[in-house]
């Protein structure tokens, strides 16, 4: 990769990523690496590096992360946040970075499974209710416990939950999600320390 020119970077990218003002102390990052050392994903995929992601976002060049598969590997365990000397809530940055990636048609395949779950949750008022066969099992287990066969959730709850999906544009958004326009993502730095093109 040729020498990067700082003038080509996106000024204010940090605030574009953190559109919801959830990680307002990103500039307190000391680049100490405590997050990376505590990151279970980095230990398996060294090219996933929260410290470098913060630096890139602050420097105004996050495109390589948006195009990466790495950002979709984060477990959201907040091990980074737990040890951060400045309480930088990295998972909330990661969440928003993924939004930005998806807006640019990257990583859509990693959202697709949740389209189905989301739309089903809209009907149930519960997330991760399985299909018919799985429901039978749940009903059997619950009955054996002496509980109602299905979790006690009212018709009102389900109706209002659906309404909130519709009112916030979530239903329309979920229905629209498609991986047809997917731009491919890949592991950006296959060996961590070696920058392969």
């Amino acid at each position, binding site marked *: 990769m040729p020498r990067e020119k700082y003038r080509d970077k996106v000024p204010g990218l940090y605030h574009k990523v953190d559109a919801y003002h959830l990680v307002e102390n990103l500039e*307190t990052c*000391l*680049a*100490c*690496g*405590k*997050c*990376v*050392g*505590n*990151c279970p994903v*980095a*230990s398996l995929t*060294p090219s996933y*590096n929260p*410290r*470098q992601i913060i630096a890139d976002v602050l420097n105004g060049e996050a495109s390589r992360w948006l195009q990466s598969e790495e950002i979709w590997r984060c477990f959201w365990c907040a*091990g980074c946040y737990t*040890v*951060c*000397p*400045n*309480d930088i809530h990295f998972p909330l940055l990661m969440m928003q970075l993924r939004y930005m990636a998806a807006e640019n048609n990257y990583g859509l395949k990693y959202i697709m499974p949740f389209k189905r779950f989301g739309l089903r949750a809209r009907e149930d008022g519960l997330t991760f209710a399985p299909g018919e066969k799985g429901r039978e099992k749940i009903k059997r287990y619950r009955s054996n416990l002496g509980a109602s066969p299905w979790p006690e959730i009212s018709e009102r709850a389900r109706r209002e939950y659906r309404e909130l999906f519709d009112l916030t544009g979530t239903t329309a958004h979920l229905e629209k999600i498609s991986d047809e326009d997917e731009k491919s993502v890949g592991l950006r730095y296959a060996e*961590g*320390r070696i920058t392969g093109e």
Partner: protein
Amino acid sequence: MMQEKTQTALVVGGGLAGMEATIRIARAGYQVVLVEKQADLGGVTGQLYSSFPRWEDPQRLLQNKLEQIERCDRIHIHTSTEVRAVVQVDGAFDVILKRQPGSVERQLRADAAVLATGFELFDASIYGEYGYGIYPNVIDSLEFEARLRQWGEGRTDEPLPQSVAFIKCVGSRDRSKGYPYCSKICCMYTAKQAGLVKDLLPQAQAYVFYMDYRAAGKDYEEFTRAVIEDRHVRYVRGRPSKVLPENGRLIVRAEDTLMGVPIEVEADLIVLAAAVVPSQGTRDMAAMFGVPTDQYGFMEGDPFKPGQSGERVFFAGACGFAVETQGAQYQGAAAAAGVLALFAQD
């Protein structure tokens, strides 16, 4: 015109700064009452095995000061003693001292006070991830000085470590669990301690985990480079995330931030450079003598009079902020100069 020197100075704290102030005030002909909470003079310096940037024996330095103090009959030493109460009357202090054991109280009058109550190390057990207080082989820097002395004198009961890891900024530069400030002296004493590992245990590995190494002082950079280049201490840039037990040893998990890779280092002993925080004595004396403190409890001087608060109270050493042995002596001397100028005008 030479006035009779009747005034008495009270020096609280018998560490290096307090001793220096005591010697200089007494040498000028005034009486000095030196109060020390511990049984012996010497403070933190008395616990040190070696010093930077010259690898000198701090005990020789202390010995020199002690000899000066012992030779001077104007110095009145009260060890195992604390200042219990102070009342300021007509430009002087009525002071009540309490000596242990037995809680023997004693009252005296002083015309000026030098506070030199020093620092203590941040309680590193707040960092569960480093295992201080959980794993016996995780110790703080002052505990390690004692270990160095044992090794240096060839008396050890425990097996010698094959690998020692030093973790800097434990409590310093940490707004989440500690303090935002840099404790200033840790980079240098850690370099010294790591270098001593290689001197005393040539077969052992020494790793220093650092975020930055700060060597701002005369000969400091050369000292640190020599530790790296001549003593072959491995400096790893990255603030460790976790210490875990494994097969009877400890492992340190971190990122090598130069290479951008997560790493593990095996160690038998882990030394935490815990933050420098004001000692309890510093907090107590600041309150008793009405000395303003910063938000952390370190004493603050008047805007244009460093090391001085009001007309008759001076302070020196680490009660103002972390300071090296040399700086502590300078500050002790400066406080003495303030007292002498004051006494000369009385």
